[in-house]
Each structure stands twice: as structure tokens, then as C-alpha cells.
């Protein structure tokens, strides 16, 4: 039932698509010498997705036919879905038409990046004559049988490589060239790690500045190394902003160690608000770490006599060691008691 619904929805999509036929954005050349045009699909004046009409020759065991499908990608080049032309269904070996289950499986294949067969060269997908007992060749190799649609191996293979091939980078660049606040909002709305990474890897300095609260939101919700990577990508200047420092004051403890270190590196050359230095002072730990040294350096550079004094007392009390560079900095500042500290 579900399958039928999604198939009908696919058809509905196709009809809308045919209704608002947009102009071509760019052209992609395929490996076999063919090409297709990628078009922008807009809802009103907003870029909604990319789309292309694909005509590709595919041969299954010597019998060839032209696949005719419409592909859709989102703004960061991820394949969304496909539609077939009502008059031109996909077929398998011996021109047997795809079943509904086959259409659903194809959708699963085209969006999967964890398949074995997509990583193999085309000539390794089938058993070679010399490897078989009876000289019979062309059978799908055992390791990938379950991954593909029986009788449509090369349809799956060809379409996967079109959906996830050169077009991806082209779309990503095309999007970057026209990236604006509404598009950024839309990409944030995808709510996936790859979308978040797309943003931090492609936004300009100005865009970071204009969307800082949103990016901070992503960091707060981010998993794995995203928070660290995002902090490394945010232009240093923006770490001087109140909202960034407020964020750090409130969330420092919940960031991973490596994210904390990345944030401290970014703070080295911006003025710090008092609350931030006070918070950081409490983060100097008994465990010898690069984090300690970065905090110490920050507090010295920030030139707040009171904070420095407090820190030195703390270091002496807890017997925390100083890097050679920090030791020198403190000496330059002529802070009393420095001699009592040990160098790393």
C-alpha cells in the first residue's frame, strides 16, 4: 500500500514538474560520453531543488534500452528521488517491466552510500567467463546479489553513478554561488550532518556574520566533531562578539574537550568579557593539558590585572605547571609570585 502511494506521489511530482518547466542551470557530462542538463526548480522566487531529465543507454546481458527518468537533488547535491515517464517504464532483463517493489528498491539504492557494488569497476560486477566452470559468464557476482535488482544490475549501476557522480559537486558549487539567507535557512532545515557541514564549508565571512545565531544553534545541537569543526571554521573576528562569548560562558562545560581547545585557540586574539575570563579561570584543571596553557595565555593577554593575579594564586596553590611561553609572558607582566611556579 505504502509503495503504491509513494509511486502515485512520484507521478504527482512529475506532473507538477512538467507544469513548471524551468530553464537549464548547467550541463553534466557522463562517463559514457552522454550528457544531461540540470535545471533549477523554484517555488515562487526561491530555489527549491535541482532536477534533470536523464536518458541513458543501459545494457543487461547484451540487450540494451534507453532509461528515461527524471532525477531530483536537494540544494547540497544529495539525491532526493526520481520519477519515471508514465509512457516509458523501467525494465529488467528481457524487457520485463519493473515491479512496484523494484521501483522502491531502486529509490533505496540511489540514496545509499554504503553499497559494495557502486565501488566496483563495471567489469567486476559479473562473473568472467574464465572464472566459471562451464564458460558461462554474465551472472552477477555473489557478493552484490542482494544489493541490486535482479535482472537490472546495470540499470542500478548506471543510475547510481549518475545520481551520485559529478553532478553532486556541480550542484554544491552552483548553490554556493547564490547562497543567501533564505537558502541557508532552508539548508539548516534539512537537519542533517551533511547539510550542516555544507554550510560551514561554504559560507563566506559575511554569511557567517549574518547567520551567527543559527550557526551557534547548530553547534549546540551538533554531534561528533561538528562543534569542533564549526568553531574552527567560524572567522576569528566573530569570537569577539557578545553572542559568541555568551554562548561559550553558558555551554563551555557541555562541549567536548577538543571543541573547548578549538574555541580557546579562536579566542586568543579577541578581547574577552569579564564573565568569560572568570568562567575560564574555573576551567584550569589539575590535569596537565594544552587547554590549561591556552586558558593561561588568554588570561595573560587579556591584561586584566585582577584576573591574572587570581590565576597566579590558583596556579601556585594547585601546583599547576606553566609552558615556557606562558612563563615568559608572566615574567614580562612582572606578576608577583611567578618564581614559585614550575615550568613544563
Amino acid at each position, binding site marked *: 500500500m505504502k509503495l503504491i502511494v509513494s509511486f502515485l506521489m512520484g507521478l504527482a511530482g512529475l506532473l507538477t514538474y512538467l507544469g513548471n518547466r524551468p530553464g537549464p542551470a548547467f550541463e553534466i557530462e557522463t562517463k559514457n560520453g552522454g550528457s544531461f542538463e540540470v535545471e533549477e526548480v523554484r517555488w515562487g522566487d526561491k530555489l527549491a531543488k535541482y532536477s534533470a531529465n536523464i536518458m541513458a543507454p543501459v545494457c543487461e546481458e547484451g540487450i540494451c534500452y534507453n532509461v528515461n527518468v527524471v532525477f531530483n537533488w536537494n540544494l547540497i547535491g544529495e539525491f532526493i528521488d526520481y520519477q519515471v515517464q508514465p509512457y516509458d517504464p523501467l525494465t529488467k532483463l528481457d524487457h520485463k517491466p519493473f515491479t512496484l517493489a523494484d521501483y522502491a528498491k531502486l529509490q533505496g539504492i540511489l540514496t545509499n552510500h554504503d553499497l559494495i557494488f557502486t565501488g566496483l569497476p563495471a567489469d567486476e560486477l559479473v562473473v568472467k567467463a*574464465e572464472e566459471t566452470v562451464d564458460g558461462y559468464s554474465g551472472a552477477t557476482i555473489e557478493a552484490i546479489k542482494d544489493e541490486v535488482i535482479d535482472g537490472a544490475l546495470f540499470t542500478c549501476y548506471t543510475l547510481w553513478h549518475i545520481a551520485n557522480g559529478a553532478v553532486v559537486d556541480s550542484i554544491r558549487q552552483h548553490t554556493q554561488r547564490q547562497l543567501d539567507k533564505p537558502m541557508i535557512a532552508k539548508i539548516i532545515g534539512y537537519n542533517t550532518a551533511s547539510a550542516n557541514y555544507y554550510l560551514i*564549508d561554504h559560507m563566506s565571512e559575511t554569511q557567517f556574520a549574518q547567520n551567527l545565531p543559527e550557526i551557534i544553534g547548530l553547534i549546540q545541537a551538533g554531534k*561528533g566533531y561538528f562543534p569542533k569543526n564549526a568553531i574552527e571554521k567560524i572567522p576569528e573576528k566573530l569570537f569577539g562578539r557578545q553572542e559568541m562569548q555568551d554562548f561559550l560562558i553558558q555551554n563551555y562545560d557541555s562541549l567536548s*574537550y577538543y571543541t573547548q581547545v578549538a574555541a580557546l585557540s579562536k579566542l586568543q586574539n579577541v578581547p574577552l568579557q569579564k564573565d568569560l575570563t572568570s568562567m575560564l579561570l574555573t576551567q584550569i584543571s589539575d590535569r*596537565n*593539558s*594544552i*587547554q*590549561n596553557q591556552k586558558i593561561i595565555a588568554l588570561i595573560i593577554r587579556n591584561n586584566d590585572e585582577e584576573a591574572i593575579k587570581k590565576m597566579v594564586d590558583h596556579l601556585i596553590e594547585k601546583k599547576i605547571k606553566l609552558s615556557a611561553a606562558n612563563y615568559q609572558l608572566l615574567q614580562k607582566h612582572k606578576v608577583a609570585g611567578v618564581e614559585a611556579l614550575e615550568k*613544563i
Partner: protein
Amino acid sequence: MKRLIFLFLLSSQFALAQKPATVFVEAESFENKGGWSIDQQFMDVMGSSFLMAHGMGRPVENASTTVTFPETGTYKVYVRTRNWSAQWSDKDAAGQFQLLVNDKPLGKTFGKDNEKWSWSEGGTVKITRKENKISLKDLTGFNGRCDAIIFTSVPNFKPIEDKERLTEYRNAYFGFDKNPKNAGTFDFVVVGGGMAGTCSAISAARKGIKVALIQNRPVLGGNNSSEVRVHLGGRINLEPYPALGNLVNEIGPSEGGNAQPKEYYEDDKKMAAVLAEPNISLFLNYHANKVETNGSKIEKVYATNIETGEKVYFEAPLFADCTGDGTIGFLAGAEYMTGRESRDVYGEKTAPEVADNLTMGASVQWFSEKKDHPVSFPDIKWGLPWNEAKAEEITKGDWEWETGMGLDMTLDFEQIRDYGMLAVYSNWSYLKNRAENKEKFAHDALKWVAYVAGKRESRRLKGDYVLIEQDLTDQRVYPDGTAPTSWSIDLHYPDPENSKLFPGAAFKSIAKHIKIYPYPIPFRCLYSKNIDNLMMAGRDISVSHVALGTVRLMRTTGMMGEVLGMAAAICKEENTTPRGLYQNYFPKLEAMMIEGVGDPTLPKDQDYNLGGTLMEVVK
């Protein structure tokens, strides 16, 4: 007159009689090895390296040497050898050979007598001149092996069978033990030249300290060398230290694949990288086998040359055990773990209810090539019983030809390696001679069968921390994280199908995977808990059996090596131990890990066999 003649005869006979003498010849020291290979893999167990005729079914070229006898005369001959196939078959021995004296064979055929290493009597030989050519003539091409030869004219001479006493005898005979040479004084001695050891040495050298690298084979690379032919796996350049792995990228082969032609493994690339470092003294063909400690510190490591038997020692304030087997730690009395921990030890989901000795196995990989003419292969009688059900109709044995799970990867290793080879030969002989489909294999010839077996697991040395499954699956990341491990937790078990056909003696395995996110291995897993100046990198670090499932990959062990080299430089600079570094100087290591030690500008070609990692995104 009669009496005079008699006296003359007596005295002349007296003058001609030889002074009793014994001549001891080490086979591995033969000047010309011909087609024989030096095998040192079991020397800690059976006492010596030896020569082996690894001809894959074709007799190899003779090995020969010149031996000077003190006296001419008649000598009794003994050869230390064994009948290796007798462990599994009472049919004619697999590895047979003759001993030739001045190109004339003795009447005896060797390699048939004893299942275990021991001296075979070879009859007597008349030696008529001082310089004599002694040769080994392989008769079968199936791994006949010769450790040593004794010629003796001492009445009632009995060659020593006991391993320890034999070693003493040898040392006394060649004078090795009296004055082992000082190989030099170093800042850091790295034992084992696999990816882990090679990267440790290069990294330390680039950080400016004097390093000795000891490797018991003629090539570097360990499992990634052309002797074992395992390709690198896992990912480099990962968070939180994206610069780690640049050295692995520098020396790693640019093409992947297990059991491929020799060139794939680019032995020369690793060698050239080591030779380019003026701070490294490279000791190839030296097997480290003795450690001297003072309290909880290693003072000296001794090593024996696998060809000449010469002994040397190394002094340093800091050592690295990159042997894979944890041999240096073991010899120094370091705490270690083996087998599988039970579930309650660390609360690991994947651990068995009850602890056992099931380690992952070792592999003898192999492949064949197609010729344009039919090629024969001996129809061996000493193989495992084979039939259509057992026949594997394939032309290559990859990683899953794995055996010895449950045996001891150090003490039983000759048996494990030999069983691995036996399985290959048994299958191939069947395919070539008896299989229903034998025509299909008529043009196929065995091209390569490993004789240096690849290991996955033996001893794991205990550190200040033992990495466990939950650390990896729950991403419990510690601030002393170092090289990130990224391969799935990939644990191997005997293949159920193969186990049915070969009960208790499977030679094939299956792998079960649990995917993880890249995870930085804590520094506390890279140094010994109770030996103060011992670090480790490779598959012998401080991890549970389950966690070894991911960390043993060679791009990961190479990155551990990068970290060890940095740590060694800091230990020297601060005159501290690895634990001291962790406690007091860790920021220095963090800074070095951020910077990296390899060339960051080289093209990144380590893109094969990355493994199924739970990456956050495909960027």
C-alpha cells in the same frame, strides 16, 4: 723384521689417526642460500633460525657453503631437522632433502625421521681435505627444513637435544655469548619494523632523537611487507588530530589488495624513508630475544642476527615494543593479557560469558596465475584428507584463510603456520589432480604462498588504561586521546562451514563487524603499566580483545607510531617516563599531534580499504 714392520704400521696408523673434532655448521649461515629461505619465526621456541625449502611443490636450488675441517678423517654426521607433515599424516614426509659433501649425497634422506625438531643421524662421511663444499639438496619443494649440521669424530658423541643446553653449546662453540657487541647507545630503541615500528622510528628521528630500529626480517613493513602481503586499512587524517597520518600517507603503498604481486607492497618505499633519516640506525635481520631490567626499567635489549647468529645489545633510556607479540614487554615482566576476557571483566557486550583462549588467527595467504600451457602439481599423499565437499575452487586465498584460533600465537606458531600451508597445498593438490573440475585448473600454477604467516593477535601489554568496547561504541572520548581508530570492531571466528568439514581445525574464518565513529586512542594505552620505560604501538597495545577488533589496522598502528616517536622526543627533552609525560608534559604532545610529523603537502593516496566507519558526514 716382522716386528719392525708391525711397529711401523702401528706408528703410521697412529700418525694418521685424526684428533677427535666436532664441526658445527648453522644452515642459516650458508654462504649461498640458493632457493632456500631463512625462517626465524619460531627461534624463541625451537632455538634457532633455519633454512627452509619453500618451493611450493618444486624443489628449490641447492644451498651451499664451504666448511673448514680441522682434521681430515671420518666423521659422523647429524642434521637438526624435522618431519613437519608428520603432525597430520603418517604418509611420506612433505619436506625431504639430502646433504651433499663435495657434491656427493650422503646415503640418507633427511626430513623424514622425527615429528619434532631433533638430530637425525646421517651416517658417516670421509673428509679428505680441509675445505669442503657442503650443500643442501631439496627433493620435494615442500618446506624441508634444516637448522644445523654436526660433523663429529668424537667417540660416543651425542648431539644435545635439550633446547637451552643446545643454545649454550652453540654460543660456546661460536663464542657469541662471551662478548655480545654493544650496538650503540640510543635515545630510543624501537623493536619491530612493521607499520607501527617503522612510523615510531621515523617520527622520533624527525623530532631529533637518536633511534635504533630492530627488525627480524630483511624487509620493513611487517604484515604490509611483500612477505605477508596484507594491505593497509583504516583511515588517517581524522579528528581530533587531522595531521596524524601524514607519515602513514608518506610511506604507505599507493595501491591496495591482499595477496597481490610483490610490487603492490612497495617494500622499497618504507626502506627508503627509514634510510633517509640520519637519526635512525637500522638493524635488519636482528631478532630481539633477551631483556635486562633493573627494577621496573629495561636497561638493555639483546638481539641475535638471524643469519650469522651474532649477538648485540642496545642501551637506551626508552624502548618501544612494536613486535606485535608484545615480546619485549613479556621478556621484561610487563603485565599482559591474552585470549578473550569474559563479559564481567569489562562489562563488554561482545565479550563471551566465560573467558577463553580464542585469539584471532594467523594467515597463510596465497595466489595462483594462469599459464598458456598446462602446469602440473604433485599429487601429495601427506596432505589433509580431501574431497569434493572440501574443495575450494578458487585461485587466491585472502585474509579469510585464517587458522590457529585457540592455539598460542607464540609457542604453537610453527604448527599454526604449517597447518596454514598444509591446507593450501591439500586444496591445490586436490584441484590439480583429483577434482571433478580439475580441467578448469589445468593452466593454473601456484605463484605465491606466504611462509611468513600474518598474525592478528597475541599478547596485549597492559597500560595505565585498557581500552574497551564501550569506550568505542559510546564515544567515551578522553582528553589524552591520540591516534584515532576508525575501522569497525572487526572480530574473527572460525568459519562454521569450514569447522564442520575440519572439526577443531578450521583454516578459514568469518568476520563480524560493529561500526564505530573514529575514536582517539588514549595515550595511557600506549605505555606499560609496570615497566616504566616501555611504550608500545601496534596490535600489542593496552586494549581488550574486543577493542583490538578496531585498533589493529595498520594505518591506525602507523599513527600510533607517529605518536610514540613524538612522545619519545618529549621524554628525552624532559628526562621523564611515558607516564611522567602523561602527568606533566601532555600539552607538549598535544601540540605535536596538532602539528603532525609527516609531509602534509604530498598527495593523499591512502584511499583504499578505508573500512566501514560511522563517519558523521560524507564531506
